[in-house]
């Protein structure tokens, strides 16, 4: 599954009207440069935790700097893995 595509697919769910044009251009991109604010990133973190079956209490210690850091954290703590992006998004819409 394309992790960058999944990340960007969560943005319009978190902010339905993306006035700042926030987007991630690569997995190595610092989150601070995506145009997402701290609340947006908190929501994306919790959405990803839900998608990967990471307990909320565990997810709270995540301190990602880049987009990739979020997915590394998910890989370490996941209890499930979606087979495709459509399935992943369906659970959080």
């Amino acid at each position, binding site marked *: 599954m394309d992790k960058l595509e999944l990340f960007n697919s969560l943005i319009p769910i978190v*902010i*339905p*009207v993306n*006035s*700042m044009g926030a987007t991630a251009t690569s997995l190595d991109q610092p989150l601070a440069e995506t145009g997402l604010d701290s*609340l947006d990133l*908190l*929501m994306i973190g*919790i*959405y990803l935790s*839900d998608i990967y079956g990471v307990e*909320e209490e565990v997810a709270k210690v995540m301190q990602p700097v880049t987009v990739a850091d979020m997915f590394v954290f998910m890989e370490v703590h996941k209890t499930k893995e979606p087979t495709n992006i459509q399935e992943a998004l369906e*659970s*959080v*819409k």
Partner: protein
Amino acid sequence: MNIYLTDYRTASTTQTEMMEDIPYPQRVHWFADTYKNAQSGLVYAPHKLADKVLDPELLADLRERDGKTAFILASGNAHFAGVHNKTGIDNKLTYDYKFLALSLTQVYAGRIAQMCGARDMVITDASACASSLKVMMNVRELFMLYGFDRVIVLTLEDAVSNPVLKFFGESKACLTKDQEDQGILPSAFDDHNFGFNIGQGAALAVFENAKYARNSKAQLLGAYTAAEESTNAIGQREDGQGFVRAAAGALQTANISSSDIQVVKTHGTGTKSNNQSEKAALQQIFHREFLATSYKQRIGHTMGASGLLETCLLLDDMRNGIIPGIPNRTRRDEVFLSNDLIIGGTGHNILSLAAGMGNVYSAAIFRTL
């Protein structure tokens, strides 16, 4: 100064569903999709309701406009800050939202203001069922005292929630299944039918001054909010003095008299106390015949959203050439419409009224364009 209502979006429904698995079974007007996936804790029903009026194209257009812009979130009353799930009831309306910070009104308002390009002022209001009309007074102040060019108002209330349905059902403030089984239908200012069902509703309205207004839908002539010494906990006096004070203030700020008003959009809950209070007030305000309608019997009581939302619906109806009658009236009179009335042209003045728990009375006057 002329203030124009240049654009709006509304969300309400005439469709109803009987909610059986709640302490006081009752019919509601709601969008079931606003609760889809809510139990995951990732979806907040009031925000999903707001999304129905946050038209991306309109918001993108607003962001492109220059001028000093304010944003007001008139959110009614109780559903923000996670109080919706504190009843102990376990049903499809029960959920525990994970992002408490985003359910705080001011945080949410700030995010939506950013989406609208409103960078100069963010205001929230929670004046219960008067909220969205109450802020019309703030709209006028921002234009007239502080030089704003544009004020964007988002109003919403997800009244279809366990605490609201329980509170209103328990206090018999809304119609329940028991009453429906006895043949009572929602209506207002009637001797037999009365009351309302609870509903979800939202509206997004854009007000602009003459410099920026294009294709205006209406003009906001005046607005006022008042309080009065009340005789019951809700704050409604039998003599309707709260409504009278609010309407008098709105007429004064509009610099017109009651004889210039063609139609009244009543608060019109149809409860015994409101029927008595609002009817007494209208008789004092008008000294002559007038036409009055109510929308709560069509779309439910959308609480904080109701005043402005219902006004926008009336503007739509009048543009289509009608003033809708109040449903289910068993008597006819020349004041409270029982049937749709055909009306033509523009330039009609509307007096909109709202009352909120806690003794808040609001009135606003609009002219159709």
